[in-house]
């Protein structure tokens, strides 16, 4: 579904959003947003005044039109944000439709519509079948096309047992046959939750959003008081403030800009995650991501490239290094795994052994299987194998060969140093050991330095022994590491960090990661992981890319920054609006206050109208910013504060002066007031 990010000006989203803006005028929906609800009431009052007042009907009519626009623009912002999610939800829904499941009951297969499946049902899927609901493979192995969910066209392997047993409803089996136990409740499949999430239907306000709403509501209440008391003040002072003018002042003062964009910001935050192929189970998790200050990162795949690379040849007694390299290269020529390729590369680098063109019938390749745990090639009578030490040992001994002691030692030494030893043999003779080691990802060190600047501590988690771990940690520039970490250690570490007041994020995929994923403030489960892991975390990364965690944190931060910045902007705008409206309100009774009209607005009516128009248009103008989020750079908090305070605080004071003046010129030119 995250196939193509919808552009901000996609007509397919904007057009339905216009309808949505009107549907959202329902007071039962509006009341959830106190700021805009007050604006709505103001618009109604002003509209009524058109008919009840004797004078200034044209002015009041224009005023009420713009007040309605203010409400509609805010609704529009929300509708656009929701629309972007809806487009994605629709494509997801297509995947869910019309699936007939082959339910297995007492050995009998029957066809059942997918939505009727119960948790615990067994279903069979063969090549070409769409998996009817979330579940766990309990039998067989199959390749599955998960493009419907992840957008990734390359099929993935799903098999019973282990960490790759989870399947998602809506994905398609493209080879083999598997039996699946359904693990999700009816109507609560992963797909259902994704749809709900992207549509924002089940969106609950996040803690910071609630706090901000309280702030904005209280400010609205305060300004309501300010405007209501102006009426009696006016009676004392001999100024008759009309209802439309008081409403105009009120709407300009209350924080409509942020009030109108608040929910759009929240929705688009989730939307940005989705477009990076991360599914959050709640908006709360996205917000928590911004607060993270400790990242537990799995070494493999995040800090080091997922696969180890050949680094050394350790020949057995009586074998030259070159002989070993030659055999190793031959055994790996057809091995398309990164490990295999790295052996070919190392052989070429060290001994200039060129790649040879091998083809049947001369050569027969023996692929890696989980049973044999070795691979190799049979070539012109030679039989070369490479594989894990223990399986190679039994292979050699099975052939009547001798597994040399010095090779066993080399294997042990390599393991101790945190490297992966691969034993190479020809026939029944062991040629030696190829060592594979971790390679730290390019640019990761700089990334960690940035994180440190943002105040985020990185902790590398690895099963390696402490020495290896320390070496890699130093190379990668993480702040801390946990060596020989068991899932229990991870859990303990998370709790310890949390006890110190830190918020912790981690990634995980295995079933035994589940408790830690649940404990972490942000737990990102890999989509390739087990169902247990996916249930335990509060986010799922569909790309199964552990580095994504860093992006998730950035998105969370950006979401909060956008809210804070627009709030600041909204509040700062009030100064200019006061300077536009207050002189206009008093001018008729006290012409002496003319110098207060610092913007030189043409007339009291044009001043009030311009302020209201500016107030409405600024919502529209800021929709793209609300949806995209404010510019984000990894910097320390002090630098970010300074920058945003300057842009949105100082900018918020200055921009409306310019905007209101410009609108006043237009309004006057058009003879609207």
């Amino acid at each position: 579904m995250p196939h193509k990010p919808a552009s901000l000006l996609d007509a397919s989203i904007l057009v339905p959003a216009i309808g949505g803006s009107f549907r959202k005028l329902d007071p039962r929906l509006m009341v959830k947003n106190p700021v805009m609800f007050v604006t709505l009431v103001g618009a109604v009052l002003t509209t009524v005044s058109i008919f009840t007042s004797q004078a200034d009907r044209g002015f009041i009519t224009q005023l009420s039109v713009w007040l309605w626009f203010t409400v509609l623009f805010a609704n529009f912002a929300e509708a656009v944000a929701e629309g972007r999610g809806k487009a994605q939800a629709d494509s997801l829904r297509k995947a869910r439709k019309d699936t007939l499941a082959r339910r297995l009951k007492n050995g009998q297969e029957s066809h059942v519509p997918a939505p009727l499946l119960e948790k615990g049902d067994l279903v069979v899927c063969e090549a070409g079948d769409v998996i009817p609901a979330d579940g766990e493979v309990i039998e067989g192995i199959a390749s599955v096309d998960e493009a419907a969910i992840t957008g990734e066209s390359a099929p993935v392997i799903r098999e019973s047992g282990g960490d790759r047993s989870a399947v998602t409803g809506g994905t398609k089996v493209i080879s083999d046959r598997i039996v699946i136990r359904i693990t999700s409740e009816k109507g609560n499949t992963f797909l259902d939750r994704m749809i709900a999430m992207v549509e924002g239907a089940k969106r609950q306000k996040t803690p910071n959003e609630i706090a901000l709403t309280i702030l904005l509501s209280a400010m609205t209440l305060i300004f309501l008081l300010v405007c209501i008391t102006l009426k009696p003040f006016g009676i004392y002072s001999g100024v008759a403030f009309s209802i439309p003018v008081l409403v105009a002042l009120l709407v300009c003062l209350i924080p409509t800009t942020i009030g109108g964009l608040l929910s759009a910001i929240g929705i688009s935050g989730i939307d940005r995650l989705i477009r990076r192929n991360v599914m959050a189970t709640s908006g709360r998790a996205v917000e928590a991501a911004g607060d993270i200050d400790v990242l537990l990162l799995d070494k493999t795949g995040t800090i080091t490239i997922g696969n180890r690379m050949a680094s050394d040849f350790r020949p057995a007694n009586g074998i030259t290094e070159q002989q070993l390299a030659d055999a190793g290269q031959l055994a790996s020529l057809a091995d398309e795994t990164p490990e295999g390729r790295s052996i070919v590369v190392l052989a070429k680098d060290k001994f200039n052994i060129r790649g040879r063109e091998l083809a049947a019938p001369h050569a027969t390749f023996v692929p890696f299987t989980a049973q044999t745990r070795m691979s190799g090639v049979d070539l012109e009578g030679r039989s070369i194998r490479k594989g894990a030490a223990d399986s190679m040992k039994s292979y050699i001994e099975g052939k009547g060969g001798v597994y040399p002691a010095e090779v066993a030692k080399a294997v042990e030494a390599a393991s101790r140093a945190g490297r992966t030893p691969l034993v190479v043999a020809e026939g029944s003779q062991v040629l030696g050991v190829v060592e594979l080691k971790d390679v730290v990802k390019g640019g990761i060190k700089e990334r960690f330095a940035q994180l440190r600047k943002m105040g985020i501590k990185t902790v590398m988690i690895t099963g390696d022994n402490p020495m290896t771990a320390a070496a890699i940690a130093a190379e990668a520039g993480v702040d801390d590491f946990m060596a020989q970490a068991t899932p229990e250690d991870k859990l303990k570490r998370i709790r310890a960090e949390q006890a110190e007041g830190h918020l912790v994020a981690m990634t995980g995929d295995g079933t035994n990661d589940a408790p830690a994923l649940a404990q972490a403030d942000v737990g990102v489960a890999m989509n390739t992981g087990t169902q247990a892991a996916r249930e335990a975390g509060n986010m799922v990364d569909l790309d199964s890319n552990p580095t994504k965690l860093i992006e998730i944190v950035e998105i969370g931060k950006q979401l909060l920054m956008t809210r804070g910045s627009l709030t600041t902007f909204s509040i700062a705008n009030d100064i200019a609006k006061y300077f536009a409206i207050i002189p206009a309100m008093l001018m008729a009774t006290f012409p002496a206050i003319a110098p207060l009209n610092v913007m030189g607005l043409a007339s009291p009516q044009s001043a009030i109208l311009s302020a209201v128009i500016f107030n409405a248009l600024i919502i529209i103008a800021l929709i793209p910013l609300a949806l995209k989020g404010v510019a984000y750079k990894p910097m320390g908090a002090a630098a970010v504060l300074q920058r945003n305070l300057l842009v949105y605080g100082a900018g918020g004071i200055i921009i409306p002066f310019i905007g209101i003046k410009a609108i006043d010129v237009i309004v006057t030119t058009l003879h609207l007031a």
Partner: protein
Amino acid sequence: MQASDWLQFALFLGLLTLITKPMGLYLMQVLDSNGRTWLDPVVRPVEKLTYKILGVDPQREQGWKQYTFSMLAFSLTGALFTYAILRLQHLLPWNPQDLPGLSHHLAFNTAVSFTTNTNWQSYGGEATLSYFSQVVGLTFHNFVSAAVGIGIAAALVRGISDRKTSFPTRSTVDRVFQPGETSSKTRSTVGNFWTDLVRVTYYLLLPVCVALAIFLVSQGMIQNFDAYTHAKTLEGAEQIITQGPMASQVAIKMLGTNGGGFVNANAAHPFENPTPLSNLIQMLSIFAIGSGLTYYLGRMVKNQGHGWAVWAAMMIMFVGGVLVCAHYEAAGNPIHQQLGITNVDRVFQPGHEDQTSSQTHPTGNMEGKEVRFGLFNSSLFATVTTAASCGAVNSMHDSFTPIGGLVPLFMMELGEVVIGGVGAGLYGMLVFVILAVFIAGLMVGRTPEYLGKKIQAKEVKLAMLTLLVLTLSILGFTAWASVSAWGVAGLNNAGPHGFSEMLYAYSSATANNGSAFAGLTANTPWYNTTLGIAMLIGRFLMIVPIMAIAGSLAAKQAVPAGPGTFPVNGATFTILLIGTVLLIGALNFLPALALGPIVEHFLMGQGQLF
């Protein structure tokens, strides 16, 4: 402003800066139940005896609710105590003038006024109150309402600060925590009310007041229990001269930012403020504790930069206020200038007669001001007293120029956070700090946290509640008065200035300041009652939410600071805090100010009279 004005201003600011740190360090000791001071040998036994009589354990800390209950019980008792004294003053001793008991509404207003540290003077001082009422009924509150304010501020600071006994270290990583456990090491208590009350009174207020009172007497302030003196003037008329135990009351009136005058004219009266030197010392005593409390804050939260940043924000707003006020007072009133008034000859140049040059002088506004203080010291005092919720006046704010009078009004409407009342200023300012941290904290991309403690819905709700209450009381009561016969009947001035008188009254009462546009005849049942309610709202409806914030923060575990932590020190934060105070706190009053002083300013320019 003249060169001598700048010198005086610099002297005042310099001395204030100098006393801030020592006062803060002393407060650290006073507000710690185990703190040590040089007074211990004398005061410690009395302190212990007091706890024994009260039956309280000074070491037992209270939660926020209990602290608040103690405070409310004590304030209620004190208010009733004073109410009774005022009603019955004709039956009580120390009443050489045989002054009658006060009316029920005036007694209510005055009792509330002193209990809430407002010291609004609906009463007429020397013409209304007996020495007993002054000394027992009022001086008592001058002390304890100040001590209560300092205690509340200390409780909030304790809640904010991370008062763990020790920090968990790396080695605790292996410790297994239960999910949801916050750490047993965080203290959720906020101190002990009785300990704070007693220690602040004994170790801080009383000793300073003794020294201050004696100094003030040396300057010419009266201190006796004599009957009023009957003098025969040089022209043969009779003049009755007020007497009484003034210095002892004035010392605490200033130090405790109470402000209620012994005499009606307050610190403008030559007895109550005899010399420019006494004037300087009085202004310093108004600011001393409030300024020191910012240092105390920095110490307590182990971030002195934060204490100074808060102080700097206060000072910048203060200096701004003084400059505006002094400028407009010196510029004077064009209406009066047209009549032929020149400036007072400010510089001492005996024998220097040059009438033509003095005609070209800018002419200052001397109505309601004393010659010995002059324009600048009057403007400075007006800003100090309203910035600090003191309310003592050395000149009549009602007669200030519109913008000169707007400054004190504005200072109060900020919520008395520029130094503010003792304690009240700090806790009021901390509400703005919390709001500033919340809004700007979001801007740095994290759940806002103040010194490591998360600011969440609850804190925002409580903080905004205090602002809402402040606005409601000031604007609500002013609106009511401005359309009521009883409201308008009390006005001494017509037109926008009359509106300012009402606005000033309710701003002053709600902000617990106590100064007035004193032309307003407020000693009427309606004004006494509504102003009394405004004072109660401004004190207790502020304190209770603030204590709830203290309790909520105290229970929170602090996140260790790092580069991602929102910085609450430095210039950026100071600017941010000022912005928050002005935008969220003060902007609400702009329309009302526009109808009062701002309109009046422009009308004055056109020569309009009311």
